[in-house]
């Protein structure tokens, strides 16, 4: 009985680790990287937003593309 419980515990820990790893990989693949967002201002200047702003752009763009099918 003790052995079975021990194995279940190990199995649960392994499943948890796999789940955490999968979430991490999914979130990192959706993260905005350099060059994903390029903005040209009306005065002709080119701007690359900060990573937080770029992430905001990409998150909304993904929703637009998802809705647009």
């Amino acid at each position, binding site marked *: 009985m003790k052995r079975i419980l021990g194995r279940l515990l190990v199995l649960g820990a392994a499943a948890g680790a796999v789940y955490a790893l999968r979430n991490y990989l999914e979130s990192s*693949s*959706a993260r905005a990287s350099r*060059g*994903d*967002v*390029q*903005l*040209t*201002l*009306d*005065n*002709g*200047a080119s*701007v690359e*937003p900060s990573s937080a*702003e770029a992430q*905001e*752009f*990409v998150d*909304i*763009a*993904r*929703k*637009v*593309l*998802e*809705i*647009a*099918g």
Partner: protein
Amino acid sequence: MAEGGTTSTGGLEGLLENLRALSGEVTTAAVLSAGGDLEAATLPPGVDRERYAAMLAALAGIARRTARENGGSGFAEARIRAEEGHVLLVGLEGDRTLAATTEPDARVGLVLYDMRNARKELEQTSGNGAPAGSETGGPGERKQ
């Protein structure tokens, strides 16, 4: 409501259709008013227009905010790349916005070129479809 293809009425929809015909890589195209309302759009059947417009308006809003933070009064164009494709924005007069979506492997520079060419005619055409100036016959041919 329209089942698909173009929505809204008048010259704007014709111009958007011309843009799509010219740039085969454009999957959807739309013109948003300064208030974020959808003036016209070419959307596939079943697309939730309200959500689509709201998200595009949010993008245009962030682009304007970022432009102001960086010393501009607005944005001329914005390109956003995601895994699912690109969203391209071109600023029109009066804080209106021309938006387009493309597939991930689209030639974005070419699409933006066509959007820039369509800008003048779109600016001359109001949301109710009445041309506000010269005759409108579409963005015309691509000049290479």
